[in-house]
């Protein structure tokens, strides 16, 4: 018994990820936490996207289910689960059935190596970033399977578009990533790393986020990745694979109910996954702003209040809106519900004030905040841009982003070489 307790505790005192420490208990706990958190994030994203888009488009968005439509995603999920699951008569049964699971699996597996903090990752792999790119590229297989198995023209065209698009943009994406990997090797030993945690630690030890490294080279690399990642996740303005005005719904035209919701889930978790790659590689991962310029225990102490402050701020906004709710008796339940939501947010904020929690949760907070900024960008793009045409998309991938990526890579290598030989001979 004592050994089991020791085994469970053994990770808490270490400075490793549970996967690297080989502690199965904590690995399982982390998997639960990450996937639970991911599901909550997708639900929240669903609501936020509809609300933010609505406000950009001078309308209100969901307002009926729960206060300010807060329960709308849950209602939608219930509707999708209860819907009839239709399979076209001529479809290829097994592949049609497997395809959504392949997509979801690929989108979820990448989170195994996402570092939410120096120790807050399921595991740390030697080939972390390679693993992420590889596994996320598997989702294209699911899309192709779905489009082909539907045995229908629109899904087939959607699948062809999507596979061509993802394969092309992966190249530019890979080049941008390689330039970052090159930057990690600028240390005393001269060897870089592919490990996600290693990349963030390299940014910490070099004292600069890689987006600002070798200005503007890091910025250009980041730009390439930021464009490619939107194309990679099939989102506006690159949502050709599911362009509803052209191909009705692209590769998932024939899907309904639960399986369609799996595609939906996969799309949003893939968005979160590529955003976390971008955050890890260029924006310092879990590092708080100015970890070196504003270092010292005082600043650490100050910054550790940010998570609590953010939640308390959200709670304050909620309570402000509770006051603004109509006073009509019909709205009483909604007002109480909104107040309850505010209380929950406030309680989370208060819990985050506890010193033990405060110190452990900081890095997760900064990571999530950076990812959330990317999520907002996704929504913003969708509200602003028309859709690219297929040939324009391909031209941009191969004739603009790829040469730019190559140039950035060569220049980064050159500057790194100069720096190592001239300034630190």
């Amino acid at each position, binding site marked *: 018994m004592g050994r089991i307790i020791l085994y469970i505790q053994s990770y808490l005192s270490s400075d490793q990820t549970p996967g690297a420490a*080989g502690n199965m208990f904590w690995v399982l706990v982390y998997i639960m936490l990450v996937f639970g958190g991911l599901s909550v994030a997708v639900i929240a994203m669903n609501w936020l996207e509809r609300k933010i888009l609505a406000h950009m488009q001078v309308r209100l968005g969901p307002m009926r289910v729960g206060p300010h439509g807060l329960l709308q995603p849950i209602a939608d999920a219930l509707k999708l689960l209860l819907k009839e699951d239709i399979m076209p008569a001529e479809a290829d049964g097994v592949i049609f059935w497997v395809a959504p699971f392949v997509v979801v699996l690929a989108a979820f597996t990448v989170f195994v190596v996402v570092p939410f903090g120096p120790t807050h990752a399921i595991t740390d792999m030697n080939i972390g970033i*390679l693993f992420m790119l590889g596994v996320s*590229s598997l989702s294209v*297989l699911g899309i192709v399977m779905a489009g*082909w198995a539907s045995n229908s023209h629109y899904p087939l065209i959607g699948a062809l578009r999507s596979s061509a698009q993802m394969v092309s943009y*992966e190249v530019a994406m890979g080049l941008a990533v390689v330039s970052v990997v090159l930057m990690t090797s600028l240390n005393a030993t001269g060897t870089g790393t592919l490990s996600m945690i290693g990349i963030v630690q390299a940014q910490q030890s070099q004292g600069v986020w890689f987006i600002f490294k070798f200005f503007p080279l890091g910025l250009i690399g980041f730009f390439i990745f930021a464009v490619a990642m939107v194309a990679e996740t099939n989102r506006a303005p690159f949502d050709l694979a599911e362009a509803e005005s052209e191909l009705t719904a692209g590769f998932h035209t024939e899907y309904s109910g639960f399986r369609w919701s799996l595609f939906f889930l996969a799309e949003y978790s893939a968005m979160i996954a590529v955003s976390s790659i971008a955050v890890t590689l260029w924006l310092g991962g879990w590092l708080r702003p100015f970890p070196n310029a504003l270092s010292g225990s005082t600043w650490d102490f100050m910054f550790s209040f940010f998570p609590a402050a953010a939640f308390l701020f959200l709670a304050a906004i909620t309570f402000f809106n509770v006051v603004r709710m109509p006073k009509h008796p019909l709205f009483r339940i909604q007002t109480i519900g909104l107040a309850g939501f505010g209380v929950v947010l406030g309680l989370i904020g208060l819990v985050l004030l506890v010193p033990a929690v405060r110190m452990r949760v900081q890095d997760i907070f900064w990571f999530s905040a950076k990812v959330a900024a990317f999520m907002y960008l996704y929504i913003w793009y969708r509200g602003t841009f028309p859709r690219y045409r297929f040939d324009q998309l391909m031209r941009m991938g191969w004739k603009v982003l790829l040469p730019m990526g190559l140039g950035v890579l060569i220049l980064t290598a050159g500057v790194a070489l100069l720096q190592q030989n001239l300034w630190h001979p």
Partner: protein
Amino acid sequence: MAPVATPFFFYLLSGIMLIGGILVITRKNPVHSALALIVTLLAQASIYLMLYAPFVAGVQIILYAGGIMVLFLFVIMLVSIDRSMRERQFNSQWVAGIIAATALGGLFIAVYTKGTSIFPEHALPVVENDNTQKIATMLYGQYMFAFEIASLLLLVAIIGAVVMAKKKI
């Protein structure tokens, strides 16, 4: 971290690989074959991980499963497979094929029964942590020339594929 339950995973993965391989060569529909091959390749990537070769496993996933097989699926969708699915699937030299395969199998068995003695008793310890770095050092050091030749090969392949597949150049 050392692999856990090696025999179990080895037999599981090799079972998947062999079933996948059999499906590849027996399915009528090339899309099913391609998917079986993808499963085989992914299982093989896991076996690479068991062999302390994470970088090769990563390359296997990203290049084979994510790249080459997507190309295969793409081409299968481009050419119409309806006609070929209605035709006879095996050609007339299947007897010769089986005989050749049996002979080759016999050769393998002979080699492996005679030659196991030269294998070392225990595998040497491999450090997994800097596997990628070491491969990089070798690729850009000892194998630099081969590496450049490989890039030339890819260039030739690109040009060849474009020349053959494009309608008018």
